[in-house]
């Protein structure tokens, strides 16, 4: 509703002529300084364009004379964080793994930083919860190919498995079918035999025990509990890296498996590898 402005005696002011449900709006002048603050913000804005990154150009943007960049700020903050962590990194470097595990501060630091490093570097294969996948070991359980002590985990991370490191862990299971050590029938029998060790519903065929002892026991040991010196898996437990069905087992025996883990020496600094080893050890399966 807009009417003619009216004079209001009490305030000695005219109304704007606007009226809502009988409430009229006085045309009270704004304070002058209000206008100044508006001008001040305009001047501030112009100054801001000059000082700070502001206008988009075709391929670039105006950088501003102060040279401020959020990217630089983040980089500086990351460096600061690194500096702040330095006391821990240095302690980690000089302490042996057992000491780290028994020191509350170092343990908490390793668990936290190890988790972050694991997420960045290891989770791609082992999964973010370290539960692995077919062909990629679960690091939470107590079944270790190359050993689950702190030192063994540390060594595995450092040199890798079948990697390019000079001291890399290496083992070679024969492909029993292609290399013509066993025929298909024998392979099927021995597969049934190793399954029977952990699964009571499967019966070991006659003669399979002898096949196992002649061909497999050298590496996987006579009682099939494996040998961590060769990275030979325990065949008597119920954990199967490449699947627990007969077909997967037959395939493994026939054609062999050769999982590869990169060596992390040189990619991660020694303190980080230590923290990572402690973190993995605390996932529950550490020996």
């Amino acid at each position, binding site marked *: 509703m807009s009417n003619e*402005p009216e*004079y209001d005696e009490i305030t*000695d*002011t*005219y109304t704007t002529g606007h009226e809502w449900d009988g409430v009229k709006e006085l*045309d*009270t*002048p*704004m*304070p*002058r*300084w*209000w*206008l100044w603050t508006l001008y001040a913000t305009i001047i501030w804005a112009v100054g801001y364009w000059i000082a700070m990154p502001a206008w988009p150009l075709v391929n670039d943007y105006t950088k501003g004379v102060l040279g401020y960049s959020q990217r630089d700020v983040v980089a500086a903050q990351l460096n600061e964080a690194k500096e702040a962590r330095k006391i821990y990194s240095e302690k980690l470097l000089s302490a042996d793994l057992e000491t780290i*595990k*028994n020191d*509350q501060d170092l*343990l908490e630091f390793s*668990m936290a930083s190890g988790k972050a490093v694991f997420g960045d570097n290891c989770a791609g294969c082992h*999964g*973010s*919860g*370290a*539960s692995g996948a077919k062909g990629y070991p*679960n690091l*939470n*359980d*107590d*079944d270790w190919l190359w050993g689950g002590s702190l030192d063994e985990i540390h060594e595995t991370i450092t040199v890798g498995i079948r990697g390019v490191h000079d001291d890399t862990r290496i083992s070679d299971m024969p492909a029993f079918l292609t290399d013509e050590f066993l025929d298909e029938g024998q392979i099927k029998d021995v597969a049934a035999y190793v399954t029977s060790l*952990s699964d009571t519903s499967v019966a070991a065929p006659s003669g399979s025990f002898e096949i196992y002892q002649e061909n497999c026991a050298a590496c996987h040991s006579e009682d099939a509990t494996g040998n961590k010196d060769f990275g030979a898996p*325990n065949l008597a*437990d*119920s*954990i199967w890296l490449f699947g627990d069905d007969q077909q997967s087992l037959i395939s493994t025996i026939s054609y062999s498996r050769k999982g590869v883990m990169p060596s992390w020496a040189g990619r991660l600094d020694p303190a980080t590898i230590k923290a990572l080893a402690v973190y993995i050890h*605390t*996932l*529950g*399966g550490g020996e």
Partner: protein
Amino acid sequence: MAKKPQDFESPQQTTKPIVPHADVERATVDAVNKSEYRSLYAAQKKIHPKRAKGTFRTIKWWVMIVTLGIYYLSPWIRWDRGPEIPDQAILVDITNSRFYFFFIEIWPQEVYYITGLLILAAIALFLVTSTAGRIWCGYTCPQTVWVDLFLVVERFVEGERNARIKLDNAPWSWSKLAKRTTKHIIWLVISVLTGGAWVFYMNDAPTLMAELIAFDAPLTTYFWIALLTFTTYILGGFAREQVCTYMCPWPRIQGVMMDNDTLSVMYKEDRGEPRAPHKKGDSWEDRGDCVQCRQCVVVCPMGIDIRDGLQLECIQCSLCIDACDEVMEKIGRPKGLIAYDSLANFDRRANNEPEKIQIIRPRTLFYTLLIIIVGGGIFYGLMNRADLEVNILRDRNPLFVQLSSGDIRNGYTIKILNKSHDIRRFSLSISGLPHYKMNVVGIQETTAEGLPVIEVGRDRLRSVKIYLTVPREDLTSDSINFTITAKDLGSDSISENITSFKGPKT
């Protein structure tokens, strides 16, 4: 400026000679919004309040001393909380995310106490406002207190109202320059001290003081001091009454808390009118007690006339009461022409009824009740604040782990919050889980019964990882609820927490 109606309806004659064009009808009229008639912007009119003398001025001096004293000194009060804990009575410890207030200590997740305190403050403000009007604005608002302080300086350097007006109108001279410079320097010193006091609430005051003097304090500290110096200087020295009239929302809100019985600083027009100057010895018959001396206007820090009635600009500082009472005493009339009064009393006097101050009303009772409820709630909460909190977070990735033996293992993160100022030791025990094995990462110490013992530092949170392993054959269901009990070995108090053990579908 807006003009009176007569100006509006019959604008000024134009002084231009009329160009002769006989066939064109001419009118002498101007546009209503012609610039001479109105301005979109009003300039601030400088107010030079005269210092009042009397009861309310004295009260205001004391309020000023107490409030400024609290502000400047309270960060320096010490409060012993034991080793490793700050000993500052009032401290907002942002780095360690703690808030200390004498015997109260609040962790970030307990911020609802502060919310409650703010709600309590708001309701208390409502109660005071509905009882006696703008007490907050007139006496205790920082804006009022600091403007009052700045006025003390202004009066000290430049003299009383008339001298100040004269100085304002005088051309620039060395003496004017000296006075102005002195005034602004003192204002700036007060402003720096104001900003300086603020940062002590966020840091250990003596330590920060040493750092500040050595120019060794963090940059943010100097930033806060600079910011509050700037706002104090601008708001206290220049903006003054503009803050109350234009910036502050509170004057507009509080109208709804007031009613006819609310006490306000009011001019009793039934007694004062008709106003007129009065000569000594003249009769007081057929006239009001107001002698048109305008002392109520000259003492007003808002520069208004209380005789115009209740108005937005009036912060109810009561200084006009002092000014008027002084005059009434001189001319031998009863005091209280301007006084704390209610609209209801205006009606009562008009009806020849006795005056009455009605403080107990449904509105004030309601606010009091709310204060008791909210305040009681907060007090109860603080008195019964648990100094131990245990949170159990079950691993979800992986949900469970099957071990080579076929056994199932679950992982848990246990967070123990020790809010007391003593180092405490807790044993962890499990109940409701069959044949479990427990392994706590990094904990070697056990009780005589073999339970793991976790030590948590003063005022600290410690989180530990525990693993529970249960034989496959004992898992009767894919989820078993059980209890983890943390027992304080010092006091034997316990915290029981129910969580679940997950396994494969059976």
